[in-house]
């Protein structure tokens, strides 16, 4: 274990004179300034969300305190069916532009629920099913083509989907199903599902592929068939991620504006039928805000609806994010 003699090398030159002593040399001033700028800019997201809530609620607040607004509409007048002159029974009617403005919001809520329901009815099986195929059955090379292809659907602007529903789908549906209204909840709900499917697909596919191989191997080694492993092991393991995708998709469906604005017929009626014209909260805001008097009752109510929409999607999305975080934590050991 003798050490070799150190070879003297002309290559190694002596380091130059000693550098200054070790002291606190504060970073150049502009480094600090730059870092502080980063900090300030980073808070912008919080500022944005807060500003959104504040300024929408601010325009909606008069419904609580303004006498002029409250003369026309109050919270109870919106939620409780009223007996309007000329009608036999009390009803919730949305008719803000008329001699006697009516602000019953149940038609809008119902419309939103109907169209969202149709959208989720189609998008969940299609989104999860497609994700299942791409994650479980497709070969890696094929997957590289299939996944971006489905995600191409996400790249279609919603106004184009609305256009397609209005121009093409509505006619087809009317011809095939002999519907009365050309534009209705069904057409707009189906078109809406096209926008929601990519959301559910992307998150579900990711969740399915994140299921550890060890689970699958254990199940197969016990003699389970492929479909049993998928049904009993893979899908349950991926369910938090799939649920997150569904929650996010739901939030998207509730908040989507253009598709329903263009394809739902915009009739604010209370009806259980899916093939009647309908109207959502978001479409109402979009359609009517252009015509209102600033500060009037109608204006205030529309902003109130906007606040409602914001809070609803806030809750749905928070739920979805919580589910995603739980999924990541559960699989945390493996990833």
């Amino acid at each position, binding site marked *: *274990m003798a*050490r070799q003699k150190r070879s003297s090398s002309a*290559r*190694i*030159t002596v380091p130059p004179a000693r550098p200054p*002593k*070790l002291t606190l*040399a504060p*970073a150049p001033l502009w480094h600090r300034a730059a870092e502080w700028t980063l900090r300030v800019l980073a808070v912008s997201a919080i500022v944005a969300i807060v500003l959104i809530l504040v300024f929408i609620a601010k325009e909606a607040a008069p419904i609580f305190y303004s006498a002029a607004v409250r003369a026309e509409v109050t919270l109870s007048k919106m939620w409780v069916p009223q007996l309007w002159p000329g009608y036999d029974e009390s009803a919730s009617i949305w008719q803000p532009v008329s001699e006697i403005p009516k602000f019953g919001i149940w038609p809008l809520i119902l419309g939103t629920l109907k169209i969202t329901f149709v959208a989720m009815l189609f998008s969940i099986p299609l989104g999860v099913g497609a994700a299942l195929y791409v994650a479980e059955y497709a070969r890696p090379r094929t997957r590289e083509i299939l996944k971006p292809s489905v995600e191409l659907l996400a790249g279609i602007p919603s106004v184009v989907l609305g256009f397609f529903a209005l121009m093409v789908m509505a006619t087809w549906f009317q011809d095939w199903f002999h519907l009365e209204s050309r534009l209705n909840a069904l057409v707009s709900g189906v078109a809406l599902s096209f926008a929601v499917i990519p959301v559910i697909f992307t998150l579900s596919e990711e969740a399915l592929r994140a299921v550890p191989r060890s689970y699958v191997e254990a199940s197969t080694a016990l003699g389970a068939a492929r479909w049993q492993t998928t049904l009993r092991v893979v899908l349950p393991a991926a369910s938090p991620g799939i649920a997150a995708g569904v929650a996010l998709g739901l939030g998207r469906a509730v908040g989507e504006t253009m598709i329903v604005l263009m394809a739902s017929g915009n009739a604010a009626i209370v009806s259980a039928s899916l093939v009647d014209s309908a109207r959502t909260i978001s479409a109402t805001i979009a359609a009517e805000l252009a015509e209102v008097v600033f500060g009037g009752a109608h204006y205030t109510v529309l902003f109130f609806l906007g606040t409602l929409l914001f809070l609803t999607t806030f809750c749905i999305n928070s739920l979805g994010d919580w589910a995603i975080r739980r999924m990541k934590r559960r699989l945390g050991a493996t990833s």
Partner: protein
Amino acid sequence: MTANGVPKPEEQAKLVVRNLTVFYGEKKAVGPVAMDIVGQHVTALIGPSGCGKSTFLRSLNRMNELIPGCRIEGDVRLDGDPIYGQGIDPVAVRRRIGMVFQRSNPFPKSIAENVAYGLRIGGVNDAREIAMRVERALTQAALWEEVKDRLNDSALGLSGGQQQRLCIARALAVEPEVLLMDEPASALDPIATAHIEELINELSEHYTVVIVTHNMQQAARVADYTAFFYLGELVEFDRTDVLFTKPNDSRTEDYITGRFG
């Protein structure tokens, strides 16, 4: 434990470590360590994996602070100047104590830009000075002849051994006084390893080198002094030939004779 071997008169302690302890949260990772690292010689840190030698090495250039929850107690002095303490800038410390890592980590830039990086951020702007120092650093790292015609090519195109020598050149360009090396050859093939060991030999003429290695034979080949760490403690520190032939502690002897890895 203090140093067993008394340094010869012409061998002065470059880095003096006293009572150095590293904590991760509440857990003590290594220490307390007391060690005199002799200038312009090679000191090797050996021991089984997880014994704390890398943690100790990284506390010599304040790289441990990057890990959240890490706390250092004790004292390290470079030529008498403390490197820990209120008012000491870690950036300045790292300019005088350089480091080469286990897996080479060149920047995705050209060979010349990699070596020049430390100079540029240190404020050197003169193109001629940069070129001269880059050439000197690459020469010292025994890489100049191989890359002098392709200085503008991407550093990622070099072989593993060449990349590691590039990282050494990059560290040398800043002209540190001490070079810390964390298992510099463990990811390399035997021929590249031999090149690196030869380089360490030559560098120790003028630089103080502290090298962590899991390969005892490498320590024996390369180092003047060796420290044996075990389970977070400095067990023994002595001249290499003494440690390997007449170790004081039974744990050292067990490790050296291969009774445990």
